[in-house]
């Protein structure tokens, strides 16, 4: 019996689901080991008897809260995919403003017709069994997690920072060139794809389980960045964790 799988999206660009569909070479083999019953980006059927749910996007309305709770009730395994669902991504920035002002900015005087809530990653609403981070996700990491789940093992993604992976690739260090790169505090698993292409890491895979933020801030100050700019860069994807850090939560 092939396990039944569903994909659902909340506030997101749906790029992570497209990343899954981008597994062109592997898709036929993939549907041989799982049965996809619900996947708006790919099929018209809408089966509700799924066992594994992949969730993309963050929660930003009362309606979505109801919907994710319903999915959690049905799914034996709920796996979030992408930065929006895992860390809250940039829409989490609304948490740093007065919410009434945010609503007015977005909806003007029509705000009363909507039911928005401050943007939240999925794990702040329901229990999440596993997270596949990234903006977008790495399709091969997604595939690896699926195979691990189907084979009955515990999925594993790297717990070390991007710097390790970046060095394994033999890349030149961007921080050494004075570029604000979040590699030393960000979870690896992306193959340091940005740094490899000479773009700084903006931390889309979330903070690594272990980091030394104070020492890292000193490094950034020593190459000319100011506290405000550093924190702004951190908050782009990791607003939730930075909020936790600032309140002494981590």
């Amino acid at each position, binding site marked *: 019996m092939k396990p039944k799988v569903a994909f659902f999206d909340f506030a997101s660009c749906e790029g992570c689901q497209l990343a899954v569909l981008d597994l062109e070479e*592997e898709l036929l*083999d*993939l549907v*041989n*080991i799982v049965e996809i019953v619900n996947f708006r980006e790919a099929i018209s059927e809408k089966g509700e008897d799924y066992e594994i749910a992949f969730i993309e996007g963050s929660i930003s309305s009362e309606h979505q809260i109801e919907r994710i709770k319903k999915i959690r009730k049905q799914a034996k395994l709920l796996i979030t995919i992408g930065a929006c669902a895992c860390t809250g991504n940039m829409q989490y920035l609304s948490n740093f403003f007065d919410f009434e002002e945010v609503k007015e900015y977005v909806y003007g005087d029509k705000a009363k017709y909507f039911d928005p809530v401050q943007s939240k990653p999925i794990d702040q609403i329901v229990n999440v069994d596993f997270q596949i981070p990234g903006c977008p996700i790495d399709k091969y990491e997604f*595939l*690896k997690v699926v*195979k*691990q789940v*189907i*084979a009955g*093992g515990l999925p*594993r993604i790297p*717990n*070390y*920072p991007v*710097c*390790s992976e970046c*060095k*394994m690739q*033999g*890349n*030149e*260090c961007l*921080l*050494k*060139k004075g570029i604000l790169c979040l*590699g*030393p*505090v960000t979870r690896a698993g992306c193959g340091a794809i940005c740094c490899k292409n*000479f773009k700084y890491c903006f931390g889309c895979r979330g903070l690594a*389980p*272990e*980091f*030394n933020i104070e*020492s*890292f801030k*000193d*490094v950034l100050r020593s190459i000319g960045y100011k506290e405000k700019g550093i924190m702004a860069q951190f908050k782009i994807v990791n607003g939730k964790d930075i909020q936790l850090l600032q309140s002494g939560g981590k």
Partner: protein
Amino acid sequence: MHKISSEKFHKVLEQIIKDNETYGAVKKRDEYIYDRLETLSDLEIENYVPTVLPPKKYFYPQEEDLVQIDYKTKKANRVIFKKEIVLLGVRPCDINAISLFDRIMSDGNPDPNYLERRKHITVIGFDCVKSCWEHALCEAVGTINVKEGYDLFFSEYKKEYVIKTGSKKGEELFDRYIKNSHKLSEKERDDYHHERAERIKKFNHKVKYLFQDVSSIFEKHYDDPYWKEIGKICLMCGSCVMVCPTCYCFTMDEEVDLKLQTVTRKRKWDGCMLRDFAMVAGNHNFRPTAEMRLKHRWNRKFNYLLKKYHMSNCVGCGRCGFACLVKINPIDILNTIMGNYYSGVKHESEK
């Protein structure tokens, strides 16, 4: 011992690159990496500074398959990746690291993957005539000269190149590629050795204390306060481990194929500076802090493995010191800890 002219030297290298899958130090943007050589002009000879990654990646790749297991038959097959390649222009620090790897990998439980792959890799070394960068400490740890680990070795001598062979494979290469070489006269030989000894003066002399005492000092100053100091600033990013030519620690990972028929057991680079390395069941960690990890890593280089293999396990290339964003480096570690020892700074347990 033979020598060839500089012009001949370049011709020989050109021919080696033409005939073989050859890798060497190539400039990529601002730094050097080991990469495929298409022509001799790709290779950096004069202004070499250590590459981002050492040639270790060819002997001991970042990730490799070890065993494939068939789900149905429960049969396991060993997988060994190997390829006939030539590494050109490997420097003494890296050759010393390769020779150390050869010993470590054949010691105790020999590593079949490494040893089999090693047979297919030809190492052609270049001597260093001057210090490459300020991070190097080859002079202190005694890795300016090479004894083994290479097949052919070229060293510059009065605008010409002296050739040494280090193996049977090297002798074959010599016969194949080097024709019309001149044998060094006795006088030239003495002069050559003298000049090579003299050149050491041109290297960094940044380590202030005698290196031969290092392991006993590291042992006596196991709780030196310096570990705490650098432990505070360490980012635990693992860069030092990844760029090290002598670090060989690894982790295991299994991956099942999409048809759910075979499982592949893989070996991947890991390092003692990273969280999961000393993590055991129940989320317990033997070395939870950066301080403990730094102390462990550098005791491996200068104490535990030095005593076991009778040579420094830091070959002094300086890659870690360059890669470290908070400037933790072996030169400062040696100077501070040996300095603390000689000046009588008390360590933690004595306070």
